[in-house]
């Protein structure tokens, strides 16, 4: 197993023959030590995998988590309804949250003290609040506080997710805007652009390079937070992945739906992680004329 490494390193060592002969034979080079320690780590991993494979009660495990018939029974609703709802909830919450976040970021950078202060309080407040609390207040607190003022379920979820994500995104956007050199604004203003025109045509597009990767990460976090919608209860058609999973587990008295639901979340989040990495690679290296 370690042979490919040996040849690989051997080839590289071959180029450094004078160095190799110069060092005393008794002492191991750093590279050799690293190779041995890596070998030991791989060995431990293999042992753990073997132990699990031997000790695990495979028939019971498969019977509990891997019942193909139950998984198949969840189709196509798990995709056409639950997965779709999760995407819709997350998408709507994200878009509203992003709009709020842009406003908050601009308020944070405003020359008007009151705006800065309001944005600061909002951000500090919602950044520290667990998503669960926001959902509870939105779903159960507000209807009690304002009787008769009942919002559609979708709107409640959308606002709750927007509140959860906007504070964090506002800080990301503010940092991105501040990373754009002041000279860009000065050049834009000297060409007669108003400050808002300069912000939207010159600063924000350049800030996006810095903002996009962390924003994609926030979208992943929000996808998972959308699972909290289940505590609000919903019609059968309004269930997102987590709610459907819970219902199916109760129905089937089996944990297979967990696995199906987990796979569905991964279907959403893995492409997003990939996108985030691509964006980071694309924009991470500053090849622009920005100085």
């Amino acid at each position, binding site marked *: 197993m370690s042979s490919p490494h040996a040849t690989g390193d051997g080839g590289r060592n071959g180029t450094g023959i004078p160095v190799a002969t110069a060092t005393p034979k008794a002492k191991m080079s750093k590279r050799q030590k690293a190779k041995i320690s890596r070998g030991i780590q791989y060995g431990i991993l293999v042992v753990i995998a073997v132990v699990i494979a031997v000790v695990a009660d495979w028939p019971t495990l498969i019977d509990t988590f891997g019942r193909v018939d139950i998984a198949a029974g969840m189709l196509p609703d798990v995709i056409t309804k639950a997965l779709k709802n999760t995407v819709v909830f997350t998408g709507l919450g994200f878009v509203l949250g992003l709009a709020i976040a842009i406003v908050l970021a601009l308020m944070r950078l405003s020359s008007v003290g009151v705006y800065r202060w309001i944005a600061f309080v909002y951000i500090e407040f919602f950044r520290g609040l667990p998503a669960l609390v926001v959902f509870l207040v939105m779903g159960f607190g507000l209807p009690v506080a304002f009787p008769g003022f009942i919002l559609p379920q979708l709107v409640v979820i959308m606002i709750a997710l927007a509140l959860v994500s906007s504070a964090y995104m506002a800080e990301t956007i503010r940092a991105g805007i501040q990373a754009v050199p002041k000279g860009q604004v*000065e050049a834009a203003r000297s060409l*007669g652009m108003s400050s808002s025109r300069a912000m939207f045509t010159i600063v924000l597009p*350049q800030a996006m390079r810095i903002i996009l990767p962390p924003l994609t990460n926030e979208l992943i976090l929000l996808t998972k937070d959308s699972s909290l919608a289940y505590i609000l209860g919903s019609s059968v058609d309004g269930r997102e992945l987590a709610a459907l999973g819970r219902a199916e587990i109760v129905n089937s008295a089996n944990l297979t739906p967990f696995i199906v639901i987990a796979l569905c979340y991964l279907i959403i989040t893995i492409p997003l992680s990939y996108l985030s990495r691509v964006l980071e690679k694309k924009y991470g290296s500053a090849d622009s004329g920005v100085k």
Partner: protein
Amino acid sequence: MTSSATASATATGSPLISIRNLQKSFGSNQVLTDISLDVDKGEVVCVIGPSGSGKSTMLRCINVLETPSGGSIVVDGMDMTDLDLDIDAARIRIGMVFQSFNLFGHLTVRENLTVAQTKVLGRSRSEADKVAEANLAKVGLSEKMEAKPGSLSGGQQQRVAIARALSMDPDVMLFDEPTSALDPETVGDVLQVMRNLAEAGMTMVVVTHEMEFARQVADRVVFMDGGVVVEEGPARDVIGNPREQRTKDFLSRVLHPGQLG
């Protein structure tokens, strides 16, 4: 409003830029004490002086990138310190070139030259393109129309920045040490573009350390130190035969850097 102001300025023969008793403080740090300076239409004024003497600050007060603390600045009949002035409209007529170029990094050269034309002046895309092409030709970079600023050398970027400012058809151009951030071998191209501009009759205020350029191109040289204008006059006087001791000291430092102990 603009056309009548221009007409009155030219009719009375008053200077294009008129700075009176300009003061500027940053907090308790008074950077400009009392600056008065006139620049006539078509004149090239070079501003020289030691680092920290307030040259950039003075230049940036002219288009109100810095808000003056006192005094008055009139450009082309527009009172730049008047709070009711439409500052965005006023700045259209004052081109500015920065030490660090400040090209818009996310836009191509073409877009750098057209974005303000279309969004601020309201020119059509094709009209803006024509103006951009003409100005890029003027700075000798026609082949770089679709390039991104990041792929250009410093000297090329600065020439694009000049073309960008020219594309707004300004009445006056302000230059803040346009060659200070450049590799020595690209300085000449930028200075040549500025020389051509001066010959074409552009009104220019140039903060620079290029004494040779000032000597050859400037109609007038202004020496600033400690937030005041110490000495001003034709280049052959201020650079060639200065009256003030502070000017002499400064010039001997820049012209013969090796000989100072």
